[in-house]
């Protein structure tokens, strides 16, 4: 019999891929149900306007139309789009605008017809009469006297204000050799997954049951929120996240269209589908970042940073989506980065503006924090004429100090920041590269070397760290069922949408039971099948879902060992699983086939005392603490002063995500993360004009990078296991994004140093760089 290999730690081809490369996967838009209708939505063309009247009469008479509704038709029928994060002012958020529109893209009218073309025809006959109002666009002016008020009931555009005071900061500022001040803008970004959002809903009238398919990262949390909005029992509502084409945080949410489409399906007693168009996706799917930070740094001449003070203005947009006001807190808490900076204080002002809501976007607060920390290191280095690598070394938390308490009140689990930095610098041959840079400058060529050492926070737990109103916590669920024919079903509460846990979890389970990876099937994303789970976000899939899985694995291993022990006359603790047998660990030739143990558990013809029939285990893993992946990225760039164009000559990333279970997939996560982080540094920004009109409403204007806009990435890793979980894993979904933005930014600014340019806002587009060089030359 062929020996079954081990799978964990190997470069395993993904088990998800056969359906995805053959066009046979089922995304929401691929669902076809008998009698299904299409919904299309009219959205606000204005940032801020009063709705005087909505005339639906002609639209309702159009061919093929089942219904046309505006916000007034839905009053008291559908609850507010939910926000579970605490804030001083949380407005009612209607699924269709009532009386007023507050951002470009806000849903106003929905038409349901036999197909989307006919629904669109009907919408062309809708007349909405608006009175335009002055819009709040600049978040720094949102609280000025006389600013237009977006939600009248509050009399202010303030969402909430938070402060983490620390008197030690003022002391440090007095003592320090220098207080360095600067302003940072983490611009607004669009997550832009390649699959826009989509919802299909079907009402089973006889059963009084509703099924909702949604392109979501959080099927169970969505079910809880939808049940509340629609006043249905959670046991009568099934949410399915089918194939999901990317999320990046924007599908960690509950949207107006989800309750709306579900309501329409119930009202019409017909299946209804709504598919977001790209224009809608860029206007009405949550954005990320959009934080302005005024920094003050107390530092000494030797590069030691004594204190950080940050004042944040954070643009929340017009409404609060699921977690909108909680995102900036990560930026504040994590802004000391990898450094033993003793004193931190920050104050955050969150404001409403006439824009789409911001919320989680890959990194969610930590990219902003890492950008602040890494700009701090650069500013200190520039101020005192030090090497930026040395300034980092000077301030790093030493590897002996872990677990390390930070000024932000967090406890970092484990780390070796010098190791990652040294490795990354070695990979670019840092000293030699600095010499080359000098030589190039003498020849009128502008090379830049950018460093970013980052640490981030993943697998957020225990549950008490999550918003009290969130149904569900920081835990995760997993079920393992060994079927009578020895095939294994894994049910996971995480909801992967590209990350690849169908592969990673199969690797783990195959090894645990000594079976082939093909014997394991991982099921997720269906609330009627998998136990209540939390979902995939915050790099938690394997970090929290993995330990949950191992808990169920161990339960079944123990049970099977007990059964086998009666058959083999060997104590359970001396048994192991190998090559589809249960064998004596000390002598694997003494074994019985796994199938025989499974038969005993299911057939149960000979009852085993203290052992129930069947082989099915469910577990819920509550993390005791968060994990803190880290690493250093280094970029070498050349800026062409004639065009302002930046060319990446080298990009090196050394990431430490703890133990690596699936190396190929880890690489993929880091690559994709780097691409999105570079996009923030170099290309992307959501632009609203002074009237709040969305300028970047298509891929013609929103610069998602193409293949030839991104460099080749050279990866390496260090492995510092996390002590927090049994697997030693830390999470890797967001690391690339967090490290790469400051890395690229620092590289470009380093290239521009001879021009005396010390500050530019992202993205560093050629035009902006070229203008800065030109202005510098003039000055």
């Amino acid at each position, binding site marked *: 019999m062929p020996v079954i290999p081990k799978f964990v730690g190997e470069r395993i081809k993904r088990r998800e891929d056969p359906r*995805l*490369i053959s066009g046979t996967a089922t995304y929401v838009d691929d669902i076809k149900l008998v009698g299904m209708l299409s919904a299309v939505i009219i959205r606000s063309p204005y940032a801020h306007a009063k709705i005087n009247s909505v005339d639906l009469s002609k639209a309702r008479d159009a061919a093929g139309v089942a219904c046309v509704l505006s916000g007034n038709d839905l009053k008291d029928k559908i609850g507010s789009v939910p926000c579970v994060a605490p804030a001083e002012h949380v407005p009612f958020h209607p699924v269709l605008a009532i009386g007023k529109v507050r951002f470009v893209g806000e849903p106003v009218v929905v038409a349901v017809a036999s197909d989307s073309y006919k629904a669109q025809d009907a919408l062309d006959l809708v007349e909405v009469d608006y009175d335009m109002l002055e819009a709040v666009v600049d978040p720094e002016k949102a609280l000025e006297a006389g600013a237009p008020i977006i939600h009248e009931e509050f009399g202010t555009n303030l969402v909430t204000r938070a402060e983490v005071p620390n008197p030690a900061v003022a002391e440090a500022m007095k003592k320090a050799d220098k207080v360095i001040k600067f302003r940072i803008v983490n611009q607004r970004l669009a997550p832009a997954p390649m699959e826009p959002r989509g919802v299909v809903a079907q009402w089973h009238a006889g059963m009084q049951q509703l099924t909702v398919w949604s392109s979501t990262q959080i099927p169970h949390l969505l079910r809880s929120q939808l049940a509340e909005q629609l006043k249905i029992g959670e046991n009568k509502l099934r949410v399915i996240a089918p194939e999901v084409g990317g999320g990046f945080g924007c599908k960690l949410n509950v949207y107006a269209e989800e309750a709306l489409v579900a309501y329409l399906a119930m009202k019409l007693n017909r299946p209804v589908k709504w598919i977001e168009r790209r224009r809608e996706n860029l206007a009405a799917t949550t954005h990320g970042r959009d934080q302005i930070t005024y920094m003050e740094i107390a530092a000494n001449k030797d590069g030691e940073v004594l204190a950080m003070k940050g004042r944040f203005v954070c643009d929340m947009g017009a409404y609060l989506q699921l977690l909108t006001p909680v995102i900036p807190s990560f930026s504040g808490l994590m802004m000391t980065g990898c450094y033993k900076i003793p004193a931190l204080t920050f104050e955050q002002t969150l404001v409403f503006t006439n824009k789409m809501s911001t919320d989680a976007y890959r990194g969610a607060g930590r990219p902003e924090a890492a950008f602040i920390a890494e700009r701090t290191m650069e500013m200190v280095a520039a101020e005192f004429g030090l090497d930026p690598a040395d300034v980092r070394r000077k301030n790093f938390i030493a590897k002996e100090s872990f677990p390390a308490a930070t000024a932000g009140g967090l406890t970092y689990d484990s780390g070796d920041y010098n190791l990652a930095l040294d490795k990354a610098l070695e990979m670019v041959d840092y000293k030699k590269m600095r010499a080359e840079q000098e030589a190039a400058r003498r020849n009128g060529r502008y090379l830049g070397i950018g460093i970013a050492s980052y640490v981030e926070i993943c697998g957020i737990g225990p549950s008490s760290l999550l918003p009290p109103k969130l149904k569900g916590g920081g835990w995760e669920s997993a079920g393992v069922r060994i079927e009578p024919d020895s095939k294994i079903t894994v049910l996971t509460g995480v909801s992967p949408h590209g990350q690849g846990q169908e592969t990673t979890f199969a690797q783990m389970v195959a090894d645990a039971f000594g079976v082939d990876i093909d014997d394991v099937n991982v099921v997720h994303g269906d609330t009627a099948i998998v136990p209540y789970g939390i979902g995939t976000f915050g790099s938690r899939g394997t970090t929290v879902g993995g330990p949950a899985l191992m808990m169920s694995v161990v339960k079944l291993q123990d049970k099977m060992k007990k059964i086998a022990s009666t058959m083999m006359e060997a104590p359970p603790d001396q048994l192991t699983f190998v090559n589809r047998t249960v064998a004596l660990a000390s002598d694997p030739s003494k074994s019985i086939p796994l199938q025989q143990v499974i038969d005993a558990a299911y057939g149960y013809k000979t009852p085993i005392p203290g052992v129930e029939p069947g082989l099915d285990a469910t577990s819920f893993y509550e993390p005791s603490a968060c994990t803190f992946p880290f690493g250093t990225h280094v970029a070498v760039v050349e800026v062409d002063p004639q065009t302002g164009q930046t060319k990446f000559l080298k990009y090196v990333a050394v990431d430490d995500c703890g133990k690596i279970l699936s190396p190929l997939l880890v690489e993929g996560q880091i690559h994709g993360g780097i*691409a999105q982080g570079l996009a923030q540094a170099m290309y992307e920004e959501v632009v609203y004009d002074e009237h709040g009109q969305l300028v970047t409403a298509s891929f013609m204007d929103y610069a998602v990078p193409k*293949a030839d806009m991104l460099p080749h990435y050279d990866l390496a890793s260090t492995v510092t296991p996390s002590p927090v979980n049994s697997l030693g894993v830390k999470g890797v979904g967001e690391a690339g994004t967090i490290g790469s933005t400051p890395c690229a930014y620092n590289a470009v600014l380093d290239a521009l140093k001879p021009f005396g340019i010390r500050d530019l806002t992202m993205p560093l587009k050629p035009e902006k760089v070229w203008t800065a060089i030109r202005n510098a030359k003039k000055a």
Partner: protein
Amino acid sequence: MRVNLTINGQKREDEVEPRMLLVHYLRDVAQLTGTHVGCETSMCGACTIHLNGEAVKSCTILAVQADGAEITTIEGLAKDGQLHPMQEGFWEEHGLQCGYCTPGMIMSSIHLLKHNPNPTDDEIRVALEGNLCRCTGYQHIIKAVQHAANKMRTSKAA
């Protein structure tokens, strides 16, 4: 209007509205949902198919314009249960994550190799600029195309 097409080797005749986009015809009439819609503006390439052997974005052409054409979609690439080398390449090299851009990416990559069987990495990057991927950062896609190019050259030489 009536359209006659051959899709993945199968002849079809259908009555369609003149305004119907080819991608909607493929997805909703021919029931081939492997071709995706990502942007409706010809920027993302998720809807790329082969029309008379050339890569075309099916979201910006009408079904009636394709009358009489031979179309290949992602569903038509594998032959007798054997994956196309490009499909294999994407699988082998982890050239996909969420998979939404993948059908279009594969169709464009095949088009590239038809015109340039031995591309450099940079040539692949330039040739794929009509196809956006948000997950992979492209590096494994480049490897996937090289994997297929290698295999296709070897099998031709044999």
